[in-house]
């Protein structure tokens, strides 16, 4: 019984350490905020952390896995990081706190979903600085696979929009 409690404590500590790792490209949010840290469990003496990629080809995937592995090891654990694909990550996994952190950082969090192929239709993306909805899309593909580039027509601020996936 005592050993079991201890294992749970260690898993909880492992989660706290892993959860605090920031995204390398959007350092204002952690892997927990983004919803890509799926589980942290003890297997024997080792901590097993399971992560899921945001975009299939996101170059940050390896960097994130390495950062989580390093953080857990530095906390004194044996560690293994596994990649899981299912259930597929979508922007719905970003936590409410994560969305607010993105906005404060100057990135508008994901807005509405579109499932059809309506060409040349634009969604409403509010400016993260002044909240105006008078904005225009500059580029559908931005500085990272997950972002598009916009400009606010009210306060003239250029900003990133975290695309809805």
């Amino acid at each position, binding site marked *: 019984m005592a050993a079991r409690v201890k294992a749970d404590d260690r898993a909880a500590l492992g989660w706290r350490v892993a959860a605090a790792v920031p995204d390398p490209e959007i350092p204002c949010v952690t892997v927990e905020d983004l919803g890509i840290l799926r589980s942290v469990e003890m297997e024997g003496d080792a901590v097993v952390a399971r992560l899921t990629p945001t975009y299939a080809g996101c170059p940050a995937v390896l960097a994130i896995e390495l950062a989580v592995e390093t953080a857990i090891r530095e906390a004194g654990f044996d560690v293994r990081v596994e990649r899981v694909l299912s259930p597929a990550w979508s922007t719905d996994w970003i936590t409410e706190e994560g969305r607010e952190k993105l906005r404060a950082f100057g990135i508008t969090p994901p807005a509405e979903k579109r*499932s059809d*192929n309506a*060409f*040349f239709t634009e969604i409403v993306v509010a400016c993260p600085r002044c909240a105006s909805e008078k904005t225009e899309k500059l580029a*559908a593909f931005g500085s990272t696979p997950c972002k598009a580039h916009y400009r606010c027509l009210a306060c003239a601020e250029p900003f990133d929009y975290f695309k809805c996936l």
Partner: protein
Amino acid sequence: MATDLTQSAEVQVSDLLAAVIALADDHLILGHRLSEWCGHAPMLEEDLALPNMALDMLGQARALYSYAAELEGRGRTEDDIAYLRTDREYRNCLLVERPNGDFAHTMLRQFYFAAFMQPYWQAMTESSDATLSAIAAKAVKEIAYHVRHAGEWVIRLGDGTEESAKRMQAAVDALHPYTDELVADEDVDFAVVPNRAGMRARWEATVGHVFREARLAVPDVAFPLSGGREGRHGEEFGYLLAELQYMQRTYPGLTW
């Protein structure tokens, strides 16, 4: 997982492996073609968009190669399959290896492919194979951006200036003969891998809609061009592979 499949669904692993490799090859080769635009696109926004789409495709290819290596169970890695085969061993359809040509050719090729992959990935999310349905669930979200982006360019150029319309129609005339192979069926279990021919009607509907908006005519194709699925590729494919494989051929086993 390979063992479970053969026992439960009586799927021939060799057929499944062939279908997974063909799908991975389509994505690797078209992703490579898109990456050739990096630093050369007609404007900065497209210089970001094309490698972004290339990254999605490489990510999808990687997941598929990694699964192929597991299915095969002969100790090859995803990199061995991607980088160390000869041209005859690649099973991509001819459409994806066509040279970039002008921007109209590149965007039309992307649109043809994405308009097909959208219903294909959607169907694959229902696959009885857990790995393939997980890969598809990610890809189906990403492909929607590709259909919209490429489709908008086909419309913009087709219904644009006299010059852009002429170039886009020339791209249609050049590439349409290659689309038959994209939607041609494979000899596999359709509970695991979607029936390609079954996607044809949806593909034609998407293409028809965009072509009407773009004022483009669908040409009559007397002789559809195919061969890639059997390993018979065009001359340009050799040059593509030479660049793609250069590092591993020159410095075998090199790692970052």
